[in-house]
């Protein structure tokens, strides 16, 4: 266990790494500060910290793949481990399906095409598997789309014959999804916080009618609402780590997605013209959060899941105990 001093040092190291690097350089830098070890030993510290930083810095990495791998229990704990294929946009079931042959519809982080080994979580008739798939069998395509800097890769396979994979215990995929949702939730909250800070600084500096626009209540209230949304989501993420429930993790991811959209809308409005230009960094965050919201279930989709389960008589998610 890390004590408070270790944790502070680790936090500072992760922050420095994330501020200085992005992409594969960030993967290496995180490995160097011991992030992959921390992910195994103290997932809460490792995940909440690095993903908030990643969101705040608009950085990219393969960390989400590492998180899913950790959730699945597929080693080793380093950036050198196999790359994991993630579910397709808006989905949270395993990207692979196995009937007689293997089909894959999924996403990879930017480094996936360079990885030596690639594994695919697969849902088969007899249960879930993790199947190693040679890179040559996969149809990979770099995505530009709304957020080219994120460097996502689409991964597809239609009906390949593959060797046998490792069988996953029941519930393992669900645990990986919980962990991934918390990770993306923290990244969304980090990005939302960065947008709020950009808008806050602008509101203090930008003068109109002889005073900073921060003095106008219409501006102040937009930023206050943004902070409320962020703090609500952050509290629910913390509660999800505390209670370890899948329901809470899913709700936290939904609240984080919604908070990021609230932040994008209000901060873009406060930043006004400059926030619409590529000279200002806001647009990178707006792009990023719209894509992140769709990973492992969007705010909208996860909200509908909660509502649909209840209207057919399902139980309410258990409230986090005091």
């Amino acid at each position, binding site marked *: 266990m890390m004590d408070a001093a270790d944790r502070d040092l680790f936090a500072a190291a992760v922050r420095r790494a994330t501020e200085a690097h992005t992409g594969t350089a960030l993967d290496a830098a995180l490995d160097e500060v011991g992030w992959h070890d921390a992910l195994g030993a103290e997932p809460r510290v490792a995940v909440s910290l690095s993903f908030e930083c990643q969101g705040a810095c608009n950085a990219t990495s393969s960390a989400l793949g590492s998180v899913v791998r950790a959730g699945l229990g597929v080693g080793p704990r380093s950036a050198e481990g196999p790359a994991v294929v993630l579910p397709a946009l808006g989905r949270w079931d395993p990207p692979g399906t196995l009937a007689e042959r293997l089909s894959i519809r999924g996403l990879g982080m930017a480094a996936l095409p360079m990885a030596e080994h690639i594994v695919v979580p697969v849902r088969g008739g007899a249960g879930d598997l993790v199947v190693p798939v040679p890179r040559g069998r996969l149809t990979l395509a770099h995505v530009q789309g709304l957020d080219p800097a994120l460097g996502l890769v689409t991964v597809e396979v239609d009906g390949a014959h593959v060797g046998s994979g490792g069988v996953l215990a029941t519930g393992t995929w669900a645990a990986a999804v919980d962990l991934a949702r918390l990770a993306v939730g923290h990244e969304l909250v980090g990005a939302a916080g960065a947008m*709020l800070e950009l808008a*806050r600084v602008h*509101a*203090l500096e930008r003068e109109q009618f002889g*005073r*900073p626009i*921060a*003095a106008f*209540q219409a501006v*102040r*209230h937009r*930023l*206050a*609402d943004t*902070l*409320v949304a962020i*703090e*609500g*989501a952050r*509290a*629910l993420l*913390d*509660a999800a780590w505390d209670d370890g429930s899948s329901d*809470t993790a899913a*709700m936290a991811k*939904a*609240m984080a997605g919604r908070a990021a959209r609230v932040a994008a809308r209000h901060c873009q409005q406060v930043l006004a013209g400059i926030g619409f230009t590529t000279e200002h960094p806001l647009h990178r965050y707006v792009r990023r959060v719209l894509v992140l919201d769709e990973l492992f279930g969007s705010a*909208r989709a*996860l*909200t*509908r*899941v*909660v*509502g*649909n389960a*209840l*209207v057919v008589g399902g139980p*309410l*998610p258990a*409230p*986090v105990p*005091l």
Partner: protein
Amino acid sequence: MDLVEFRTGLDEWLAGHRTELAPTHRGAGTLDEQVAQLAKVKRLTFDADWMRWGWPRLVGGLGGSTLLRAYLGEALTAADLVEPGIYSMTEVLAPTMIDYAAPELAAVMVPRLLRGDETWCQGFSEPGTGSNLATLSCRAVRDDDGWRVNGQKVWTSLAQYATRCVLLVRSGTADSAHRGITALFVDMDTPGITVRPIGTMHGVPEFAEVFFDDVAVPAGRMLGEEGQGWSVAMDLLPFERSTALWHRGAHLQHRLRQLLVTASAGTLDPMQLGETVQMLAALRARSRATQYRMAAGERLGAETSVDKVLLATAEQALFDLAEGALSDAILLGDDPDDARWRSEFLYSRAATIYGGTAEIQRNIIARRLLGLPDHR
């Protein structure tokens, strides 16, 4: 006594004393019934010691974490044994007495509040002083034995039942703003006090106007020092947004459960329902963190305005959902359960008004948490 032990013991005790504790009325009951029920539940829980945990020994408590108080209120609220708004007034008034009254006064008075022997009220707002508390004008002048008070308060919850009042008065010059305010602890049976309950939209006359006509208050009834009333008020307000708010959140969670049981198939919109569930979960998570900060002895401040905005938003979302799903009951029903949904739906409209409006909370967040000066 730790939280787990308390929780287990209390849950068991509540189950074993269900009949004694249960209200005699159906639905929400009249305000008289609610106040009587509250006094009964406070007495039973105090005599069985549950109500004494989490309060200092000086005032009749048994010590222990404030989390115990948070759980007690949650359990009583979730079992529909108390109306959370009037229950939680204790959470606001008792800490004020503990922090600011002379120790011997607190030692005599606070147990009466905790045990439900007395009801107290809080005289802050005035007709000309809503959001801008620093402009209050209810006047207190020193005389030989203490103070003479003249003026008017409004929105004073439960004043018609109250034995005592924590009262903010203008002791300085008319333009002394927050510097010239003093807090007094006033006996409500003092000659010169007139209480007039106010009819409200939700049918519960819980607020009153209180008139002070040359009311004598002894010097020993000052809370804090002369001119310290603003600090008393500022220290009290975060309590409204901590334990009291936790209780309210638990109540909303309870009403959501009842809504799911009551609503007919097809009347609840899944998206709206899912969003309400999530908002209540976020409120609970945030308020839970606040309970732990308070239990750790942290001084609560402006950040509790975030909790209040989350509460008001979630409360209105829940009752908007209820109004859609239970429109027959809320619009046309006269059964006590229908009347309760109607009353609570209407009361939820005030969630963005009482205890500092939604606008005031956002101003506090902007100024104090985001560092945006307002250039007034």
